[in-house]
């Protein structure tokens, strides 16, 4: 600040004295050079300080570096294991879909009365893959399927999917309406808002219902009251027997909770690598399971 003031004074005086003007110009230049030089030293000192700090951190945490490497190696081993498992599963799926494995030939599909398919929302954007999956399910004889994705992507493509499915059935259904109805897949499409939010709406419904009688206390609400309330507000739907999850994680992603009580949950892997053989295997495994229902 002082230097700047001195500089300003010099500049002022130099206007009136030509000798001083020449001398002040030279002084300005020297000052600028000095300031630049000092700034360069300052930045170099800061850089050096930064590098020293990083170096200290590395030395201090060299124990943690070893642990980090061990952790990475552990995860590498796990990834290799899953890669090997995927290879074996792919081979098995190929053998099943080619008909080499005789035990998969006869499948009692009647045990799967209602199937749920949970899709990761990003994978659900691939409508052609979803349609292919629905075609496989129809070909296997399933008639009631529920598609779920958390963000409601499938709701937007529901009409397109229904139209495609119907158009594929029609050429074969030339024998009459009865056969068309028989082959037609009943499709339910839901998202996250049909889950938790529906329970809150049911609670509101019950609140209004019991508020009509202002003097009475709220009675003991049972599970069947809850089920009735959900039905009244349009959320009555069957509980799936089997749920197939197409996504990176074995997680139901918020499927309506009251419908999941005794549903078998099977993780099928990503949608883009879905296989017909894996689908048959999952459904056959379900048909072999015996449930105790808590008793």
């Amino acid at each position, binding site marked *: 600040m002082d230097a700047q003031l001195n500089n300003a004074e010099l500049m002022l005086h130099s206007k009136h004295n030509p000798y001083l003007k020449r001398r002040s110009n030279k002084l300005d230049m020297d000052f600028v050079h000095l300031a630049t030089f000092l700034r360069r030293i300052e930045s170099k000192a800061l850089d050096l300080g930064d590098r020293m700090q990083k170096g200290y951190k590395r030395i201090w945490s060299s124990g943690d570096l070893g642990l980090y490497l061990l952790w990475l190696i552990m995860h590498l081993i796990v990834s290799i294991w899953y890669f090997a498992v995927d290879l074996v599963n792919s081979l098995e799926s190929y053998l099943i879909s080619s008909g080499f494995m005789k035990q998969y030939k006869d499948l009692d599909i009647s045990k799967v009365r209602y199937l749920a398919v949970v899709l990761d929302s990003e994978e659900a954007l691939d409508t052609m893959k979803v349609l292919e999956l629905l075609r496989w399910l129809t070909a296997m004889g399933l008639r009631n399927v529920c598609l779920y994705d958390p963000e409601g992507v499938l709701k937007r493509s529901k009409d397109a999917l229904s139209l495609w499915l119907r158009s594929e059935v029609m050429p074969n259904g030339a024998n009459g309406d009865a056969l068309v109805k028989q082959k037609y897949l009943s499709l339910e499409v839901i998202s996250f808002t049909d889950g938790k939010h529906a329970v809150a709406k049911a609670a509101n419904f019950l609140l209004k219902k019991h*508020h009509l009688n202002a003097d009475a206390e709220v009675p003991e609400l049972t599970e069947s009251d809850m089920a009735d309330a959900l039905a009244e507000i349009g959320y009555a739907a069957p509980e799936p027997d089997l749920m197939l999850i197409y996504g990176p994680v074995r997680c139901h992603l918020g499927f309506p909770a009251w419908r999941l009580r005794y549903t078998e949950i099977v993780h099928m892997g990503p949608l883009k690598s879905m296989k017909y053989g894996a689908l048959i295997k999952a459904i056959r495994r379900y048909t072999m399971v015996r449930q105790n229902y808590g008793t």
Partner: protein
Amino acid sequence: MEKQSSSVVVRLLGSLVGYMRRFLFRFLSVGPIPRHMAFILDGNRRYARKWKMDDRMGYKVGFLALMRLMRCCHELGVKYITVYVFSIENFKRRPEEVQTVMELMLEKIEGLIKEEGILNQYGVRVEFAGNLKLLSEPVRIAAEKAMRVTAHNKSLVLVVAVAYTSTDEMAQAAQECCRDKADRGSQQQQLVELADVERHMYMAVAPDPEILLRTSGEKRLSNFLLWQTSNSVLYSPAALWPEVGLRHLVWAVLNFQRVQPYLHKRRNHLYLSTQQ
């Protein structure tokens, strides 16, 4: 002399195993560790039949497995553990079987809450989640005492789901919401929000679990934490509950670490969508 030397060897071996376990947890902790793990204790009766024991012995071995796992979780840094001990559906079992389980539960709760018991030693706070009115009087009183006595502990929270089903939990939460809103007077007709329902759940004492582990290879949730597992990894090892050990815990955590970024992203998406 021989007994002394063998006990010294056993102690040394024990400390070596403990040291290796703590080292394993140290390098596992490089990645994210789940804050809350839930377990369905399935397979005690099958274990008893497999080893030709009676059911009571099977449950006792199962209890030891629970204590073992609780210690491991505590060392790993897990903050909440939920265990599904008794479902409302289990009341439909034979009366003598229900009686066996209730007596065992009473015995174990009383053992755990002693001064020198494992709960105070590890700083474990116990919470009981479920419709406690369905339990017999002595068990209910013991449960309430356990919650009171361990309320000051801060290291780990053990949530015991007893007389619990998810559908009952949702019905009870809706009922509590209605009572709450009705109590505030009929002039201001307030709406029940999703947050109100979540606040009245039995499981509101803990955040949502990151991992749900069901033993015996069964692939269903059997009416357990259906609401809270929207973003949980569901893991079903084939081992029966009394056989579960460190390797299952480590494998579950490794699998969780692989998918944690995806689940974290999903959780944020859900949070944003519920705010709208």
